């Protein structure tokens, strides 16, 4: 279904190709053999660890912490609403425009469903055992030590533990009833089918604009849903995602305005833009984050007002303005690639400067630099790892806390925990780059 298997002749062609490329000279053959041996050994060790040795139960039992941290369980509906809206929007957009992503979507969906099914009914618990032990000291005395020992126990044993761990993580990311997760799946499928139905109108400006607007509105809606709980409760992947979404969105807006400001005919504006861009890029993000944390009333009333805002919001502001400086430079490159004739044609037909930039220049300039913009977004996403440095509990910090606080069951489980942290960063980066790739091909239609 997902793609025809290469036929025999293609395989033998590949083998011939490999012989010609990898084993053509003595040096090349030696290098290839070394690479295969080393790579194979690494792959073997990794596979052995993942399949048999790793303590995935630890990950499974802490899954909620990885996703939403210590978000109040009674308020979990706020996150579920956000998840539902996102699922519907994503599925609709995918159904409408995601043709190129279909193989990936099907692969991910089928795998997820398989794992889900396997995981149903699995039970994972921590068993506590009373233990008594006699310890012989050096002087020959015997002392009796007793206490409680905790152990992770899986209830079913016919599939490897990692499969249970993954399935539990997927099925119940928030420790929620699997019915909710099933609802998300249903929404995804129905949304995608509805999107497919609508493909006839996929170039319709009203549909385009409303779905675009819905995506943009999603961010404030998710934030507004937190009224009553407070952003201070955001932790883990949920915190990272929101800081990235808010910061990324506004960094794009700020970046576009800075790029335009840089070439403004008013010198004050262009000098201010250039100065801003250069100053912001002169220091690492960490420094700006620390500024935002410790900036109390040094800056007078402005600083005071700023420091009264919740740290999470302050960090989002820093992300937006920091990312904006970089996106500005990317967009500037795009603007420079637009030939003068485009400006002249727009001027000659009487478009206002705003119309000229909004309809003619920016759409082309931004299209020209989609890959670089996606690159900046991916960098910004991975920069959320720095949140730990300003005492926000991001995924990384949560992982450390799990390791530090559950010493009995988490003993030595660094690898398992950090693999999960790495997967969280990788997954979003990967989705962004696929999305960027799809956007690029789609937007290339009609380019000169």
């Amino acid at each position, binding site marked *: 279904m997902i793609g025809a298997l290469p036929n025999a002749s293609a395989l033998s062609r590949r083998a011939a190709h490999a012989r010609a490329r990898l084993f053509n000279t003595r040096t090349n053959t030696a290098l290839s053999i070394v690479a295969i041996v080393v790579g194979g050994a690494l792959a073997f060790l990794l596979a052995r660890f993942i399949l048999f040795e790793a303590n995935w139960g630890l990950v499974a039992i802490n899954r909620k912490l990885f996703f939403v941290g210590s978000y109040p369980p009674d308020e979990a509906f706020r996150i579920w609403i956000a998840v539902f809206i996102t699922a519907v929007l994503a599925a609709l957009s995918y159904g409408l425009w995601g043709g190129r992503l279909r193989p990936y979507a099907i692969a991910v969906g089928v795998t997820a469903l398989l794992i889900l099914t396997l995981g149903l009914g699995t039970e994972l618990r921590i068993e506590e055992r009373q233990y008594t032990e006699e310890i012989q000291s050096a002087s020959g005395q015997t002392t009796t030590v007793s206490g409680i020992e905790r152990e992770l126990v899986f209830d079913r044993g016919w599939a490897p533990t990692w499969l249970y761990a993954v399935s539990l993580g997927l099925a119940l990311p928030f420790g929620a009833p699997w019915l909710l997760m099933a609802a998300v799946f249903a929404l995804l499928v129905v949304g995608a089918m509805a999107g497919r139905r609508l493909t006839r109108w996929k170039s319709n400006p009203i549909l385009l604009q409303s779905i675009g607007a819905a995506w943009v509105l999603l961010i404030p809606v998710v934030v507004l849903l937190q009224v009553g709980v407070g952003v201070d409760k955001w932790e883990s992947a949920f915190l990272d995602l929101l800081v990235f979404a808010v910061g990324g969105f506004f960094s794009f807006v700020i970046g576009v305005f800075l790029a335009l400001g840089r070439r403004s005919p008013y010198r004050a504006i262009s000098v201010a833009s250039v100065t801003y861009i250069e100053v912001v890029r002169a220091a690492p993000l960490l420094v700006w984050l620390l500024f935002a944390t410790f900036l109390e009333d040094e800056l007078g009333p402005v600083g005071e007002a700023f420091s009264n805002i919740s740290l999470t919001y302050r960090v989002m502001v820093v992300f937006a303005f920091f990312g904006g400086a970089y996106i500005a430079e990317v967009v500037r490159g795009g603007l420079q690639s637009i030939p003068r004739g*485009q400006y002249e044609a727009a001027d*000659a*037909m*009487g478009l*206002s400067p705003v119309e000229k930039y909004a309809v003619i220049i920016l759409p*082309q300039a931004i299209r020209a630099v989609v890959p670089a913009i996606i690159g900046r977004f991916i960098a910004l996403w991975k920069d959320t790892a720095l949140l730990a440095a300003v005492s926000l509990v991001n995924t990384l910090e949560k992982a450390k806390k799990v390791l530090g606080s559950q010493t009995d069951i988490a003993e030595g489980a660094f690898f398992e925990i950090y693999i999960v942290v790495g997967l969280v960063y990788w997954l979003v980066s990967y989705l962004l780059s696929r999305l960027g790739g799809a956007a690029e091909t789609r937007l290339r239609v009609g*380019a000169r």
Partner: protein
Amino acid sequence: MATESKREIVRLEKVTKRFGDFTALNGVDISVTEGEVVAIIGPSGSGKSTLLRTINQLEPHDEGRIFFDGMELTDDSRTLTKIRAETGMVFQQFNLFPHLTVLRNIALAPQKVHHRPEQEAEERALQLLDRVGIVEQAEKYPGQLSGGQQQRVAIARALAMDPKLMMFDEPTSALDPEMINEVLKVMTELAASGMTMICVTHEMGFARNAANRVIFMDEGEIVEIGTSAEFFTTPREPRTKTFLDQILTH
């Protein structure tokens, strides 16, 4: 020559344009009346493009006065809005918007500048495409068309504003030879329909047959103006003769 009763569309009085120390236009006087077709010829760098571009103020002039349909072009932005909304310009390099379909390229300005409803603007765009003979390309993107087709779209785009004046800046110079005629044909039909036109061109056949008057420019000045019949048969100025000899004898 146009008769006295005809309305004057453009008048330039002693117009001068400088780029730094370099004088690209030096005291140019021209008057074009309604329905007239004027061809401008002259060697490269003689200021032909600059002349067109001062008329719609892509290059603001430094000295002299420019009148468009009785209104003087001044610093007042309203005069700028009017001249651009009421003139159409066709460029050597087409300058179509590559990210918009042919139809959107044409319907855009009427919608944004004249505030026409989308449907009306697009219907009109289709009529214009029909007029330049490529209505079947409406949904394509400019990059999918041949050069000649692109230039015809550019002409339709300029016409969509219902301009009082059409300006062409070497519209066939970037075209492969086999495509020149399809564009010249559209221009000739346009001239016959009574459109007021100023055309910078190297197509002497077009200048001779479709234009009422021919202007010869050199070094930022108008060297000679004549009716197209006089101009080619009995040029007065030696510089005109030299130029005509050069381009007509090869």
